[in-house]
């Protein structure tokens, strides 16, 4: 090997970093407010949803706007990550066909890019906390752990979707429906206590329910998630990742023939 080229993880990591920085630059290029949109967007969404839901449903939730923004941003992180990962292979067609490159970097890059976006939108969450005078607790140190669960989970989902989408473009259409159903099935803007009994049983198997609740626990309610809750989240993340990774590995050599 010549000394100028590198292989393995180090090389891939630099490639991923470069791609994330490309996506980041392109996202805000030529917008007046630029990165500020990452903060403004969740705030504005929160205002709209608060206006809508507190008028129509009158849920009795303390700090409703904060409840909303926590659920929405975390859900958006998981879904946007899976979503953009799903398109990553198809969109990288020209690269895959021309350069010998580790294909898994494309979904990973997209997931990490969404994570970066999420971290910027944390500013919005802080602003809401200050505005509503919600005192931060030490539980917030668990946030990186939660983000790790969500990222690994979304990556697994994204890997599976990206591989399947190469072979069946139907996946792209099915996924948008699934995503919407998932959004309504997860208590993002309604309280859990309005759910019927059977629905609560279902929520036990909804990873997003666990992640969102975890987030609200540490940021809003000041609860410390127990070991059991952590293990459940970890299990969801690891199993999803394993399944996605296996699907991806088994099919990636055939991508070039189908993209």
């Amino acid at each position, binding site marked *: *090997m*010549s000394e*100028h*080229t*590198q*292989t393995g993880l*180090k*090389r891939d990591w*630099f*490639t991923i*970093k*470069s*791609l994330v920085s*490309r996506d980041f*630059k*392109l996202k805000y*290029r030529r917008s007046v407010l630029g990165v500020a949109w990452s903060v403004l967007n969740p705030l504005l969404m929160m205002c709209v949803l608060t206006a809508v839901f507190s008028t129509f449903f009158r849920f009795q939730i303390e700090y409703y706007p904060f409840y909303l923004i926590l659920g929405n941003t975390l859900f958006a992180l998981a879904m946007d990550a899976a979503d953009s990962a799903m398109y990553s292979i198809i969109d990288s067609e*020209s*690269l*895959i*066909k*021309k*350069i*010998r*490159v580790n294909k898994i970097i494309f979904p990973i890059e997209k997931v990490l890019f969404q994570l970066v976006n999420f971290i910027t939108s944390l500013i919005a969450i802080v602003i809401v906390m200050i505005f509503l005078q919600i005192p931060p607790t030490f539980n917030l140190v668990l946030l990186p752990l939660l983000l790790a669960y969500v990222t690994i989970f979304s990556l697994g989902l994204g890997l599976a979707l990206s591989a399947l989408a190469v072979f*069946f*473009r*139907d996946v792209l259409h099915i996924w948008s429906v699934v995503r919407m159903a998932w959004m309504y099935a997860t208590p993002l803007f309604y309280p859990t206590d309005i759910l019927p009994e059977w629905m609560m049983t279902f929520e036990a198997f909804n990873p997003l329910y666990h992640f969102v609740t975890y987030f609200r626990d540490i940021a809003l309610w000041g609860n410390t998630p127990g070991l059991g809750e952590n293990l459940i989240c970890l299990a969801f993340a690891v199993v999803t990742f394993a399944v996605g990774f296996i699907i991806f590995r088994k099919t990636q*050599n055939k991508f*070039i*023939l*189908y993209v």
Partner: protein
Amino acid sequence: MSQQVITTLLSDKSAEIYDPAVPTMIDVSHVTMDFNSASQQLNSLKEYFIAAAKRELMFKRFRALDDISLTVQKGDVFGILGTNGSGKSTLLKIVSGVLDPTEGIVAINGNIAPLIELGAGFDYELTARENIYLNGALLGYPKPFIDEHFDAIVDFAEIRPFLDMPLKNYSSGMVSRIAFAIATIIVPEILIVDEVLSVGDFMFQQKCEKRIQKLIHEHGTTVLIVSHSSDQIERLCNKAIWIEKGHVRMVGTAREVSQAYQALGGHEGSPEAERKIFEYVANDTPPLLDISETVAGADHYDTNAAVVGKMQATEHFSKVIIAWGESLSAQMAALSLAGNIGGIVLLTDRDHLPHATLTMLAAIGPQQVWYLAPPNADNQVLSSLRAAIPRSSSVETIDYESIDDLTAKISILAGKVTGGLTPQECERTFAVVTGEALGSASATFAPLIARGCPYFAITKEELIGRTLEHISESGIERVVILGQGSLLTAFAEKAAGDGLQVTHLEDKRCDEDNDAALRWLAEFADAGNKSAGLYLCAREGVVDALSVAPLAASDNGLMLMVDHNDMESMGRAVDIIEQYPTPIDRITYLGSDVCFNNIDKMIIGRAVGRRNG
């Protein structure tokens, strides 16, 4: 309809070019690549299940490569030649690891820098600076390395003033410059080059080639290169392979493969014709370049003037005929007149007298000039014509409305000037007839016309009768019709009805037309048998054949029209040369390199060499 492409193995010298002392860098062993062409359209579940139900999933198989083996050794510059769609790029993709072969093994010994389709991975919204880092990352360079070589890349690509401009505002040439600069900034052990040198302007191509040469000579980089240009392969490579539709056709030294490819690649024809030509390419008898000569002017006025100049060196012409250079039949008619009256033909444009013609007129200083004025000709031609010749000389203008009109007038004129007697009496017993266009056999007949054989053109139905009258008045017994069309068919029927012996050579293929023309000439005109000179005219260069015809006529030469892209035509020409009854001591090629390239000349030269023994 294009013919079936020949894909059989011509010659495999891979054992001869293999040097056991040198390490192998790339070993492609029995690689087959199948694309499932059906699967490419199956992008939805429904289609998939329908196809699965019909059991069509694996059936529509397209074999891009079929059992290809290839060994590239350290320091080799290995060229891959082949026409479009022959599988060259697929092979490169397999070697560079982008594609996995269906069968077979590829072993690589060293790091590869693939230059396959430059600029893959560029984002046109980003600036050049950002793209250099992004592309570098995709090619596997660490950041410090890019930092270190950033200036070198920018300087090589010559884009410093535009570094912070989005790539979408760049020209495609600039983009490929950047891509090439990034890809070659490292010193790879194996460099893979896919037609990249065909992009960008001439200066850039040279620069790229220099860079590749530097990698080869200073760093001992092994190179695998794909190109359409056999010249480039011959210049850069030491070994080469020629693949066609996924099959190996030839492996050997770059020189022999590129020569064979130039002579045969992408040309139509039968395997027999190909074998024959290949035998001449692979053979190393001297190609007799010392007796070859190429006549090629800047344009056909120039070529014509050059030939006249050449003839004037040995013979003085006092009679000059000026004909319209844009009309082949007008030139042919002038040729016939010149042969009759012992003059020479010069060409003019419709609205001015070309410089080459003017110069030649001044050099000859003719006493008599006939100006065959084309319809709607500019008067300026006539005035500059008068100014160019001695005051005492006479100029007779012959106006004509159509080419039929002209040929009829000329036939009368020829009789008047020579008083009914012709220099070569035998050639007055037959006439050549064409339509507006001349068939491919006309080159073979051109020397005959230049010796004074009457010539008639038919472009209007109502003139068939008049032309036939002229023909019978002149005591002509035989008519050769060159070319096709309903007018000529009608003429052939009427002529046969009038008791003339008619031979109709339709414009088919160069080889058949040459054959038919030569047979006719051997039977009726007894021409060409005593010749020592061979004149070769390209299919696209009939006009030059007409210009050179007087020269060929003067030495009783053999003139052939060859379509060098058609192996049948080349093969037939080689046959005719080989079987020619007398030794050939001069070969004249009409037209530039576009008409006959070095390989064509080599093949013809070797055929002549074999004929002469």
